């Protein structure tokens, strides 16, 4: 028997393409704007969210029959917050440098509406294995967009990728800068992320017209 049935595989693959949390559902935009000025921050945020969302969906799914409906949102928030604190403490103990780089981003995971959205829409109604796949799939879908946006913003905003100069030295005017090229300072400001996400949405919908909403 295959590890994943076709239905299970779709739980992971759909959010990567036609049901992407950022470009289709337009969720999690806040962090997509805030942290994508650098590729490294985008990658680390993506990995952290994969962990929190995969684990969180499993925990909420296991508790789904005993959570009182009146306080379910609070319970879900506590689950996310607990997982985020665990990630934060473990990083501080075993990857101190990384935890310092991440700083505030880890805390920001709590406010990521995709996580609460998946708890509420999927984990409360499905078993732990399927919830786990759904969590991983949505976090991957979110992470892919984050990394694409981070790639373009760092490349054109700072002329570097993961901190390494790609176009030459902007101050000494070497490489591409010798021809008069300048970094686009706008790319490192948050509104640029909105434009890059907008372009991604445009590209995706023009490739698959079925995604375009009817007025």
């Amino acid at each position, binding site marked *: 028997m295959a590890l994943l049935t076709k239905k299970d595989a779709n739980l992971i693959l759909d959010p990567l393409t036609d049901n992407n949390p950022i470009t289709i559902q337009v969720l999690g935009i806040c962090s997509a704007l805030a942290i994508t000025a650098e590729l490294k*921050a985008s990658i680390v945020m993506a990995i952290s969210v994969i962990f929190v969302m995969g684990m969180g969906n499993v925990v909420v799914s296991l508790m789904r029959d005993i*959570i009182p409906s009146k306080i379910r949102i609070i319970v879900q928030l506590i689950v996310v917050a607990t997982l985020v604190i*665990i990630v934060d*403490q473990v990083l501080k103990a075993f990857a101190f440098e990384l935890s310092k780089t991440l700083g505030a981003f880890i805390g920001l995971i709590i406010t990521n509406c995709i996580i609460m959205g998946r708890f509420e829409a999927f984990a409360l109604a499905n078993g732990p294995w399927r919830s786990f796949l759904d969590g991983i799939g949505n976090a991957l879908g979110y992470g892919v967009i984050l990394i694409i946006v981070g790639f373009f913003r760092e490349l054109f905003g700072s002329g570097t990728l993961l901190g390494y100069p790609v176009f030459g030295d902007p101050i000494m005017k070497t490489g591409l800068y010798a021809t008069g090229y300048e970094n686009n300072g706008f790319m490192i*400001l948050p509104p640029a992320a909105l434009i890059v996400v907008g372009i991604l949405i445009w590209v995706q919908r023009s490739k698959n017209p079925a995604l375009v909403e009817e007025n």
Partner: protein
Amino acid sequence: MAVDTDKNTYTVIFAGLMVVVVGSVLAFLASGLGPTIKQNERYATQQDILYAMGVNENGDDAGSVSKIPTDKVEAEFTNFIKEQFVIEDGKTTPNDEAFLIDLKKQLASKNKGNSYKLPLFVGEKDNKNYYIIPMYGKGLWDAIWGYIALDDTMTVQGVYFDHKAETAGLGANIKMRYFLDDFTGESILDGTKYAGIAVAKGNNDPLNNRKDDNAVDAIAGATITGNGVAAMISESVNLYKDYLETIRVK
């Protein structure tokens, strides 16, 4: 038997249990990882102090910051830092644990009008003394801090800055080498006044060739963080002014 999860009693009991379970898990984690985290913080402080006085593993190219590795830092710290002092009520006393003093708490105590302790480190490298001052201030979003190493002419020998939550790609770049390196060679004195170093926009000196202008070139898009850095340096050197006057070569 199915439990009615909508009953108020159930909800209250559930909430209570959840608090106990989550509280225990986090308390267990905190007490288990606490000592490791404390040790990491101790190493990080030593790394930062050494970095400011030029004891680091930076390459020749102006790439990224490379500190002394954690497994060597304790030995290097004892090797290079000759003396540690605490300044309290104008009195300077030696204290080997001065680097563990939390400057944030001391400044809060100062602002309340209570007594406060200021840590200070004297390092020696290539037969030259380095006076290293810790700094603490405000950036755009949250705290910024660092260390500044001076010689006896009040010329900056090196700095280190860090931040809690400045914007990635903008204010967060205060800890990048191209910014840190600019401070070396600048004087914190303007005549006899402890002026600090301004982080200036449009000083028309992007390569920072002028070392006598009490200014370095700002980072584009990080005005408030840059102003925070300048304010932090000026406030900190003024806090230590009395001590610095005793060691300054006039």
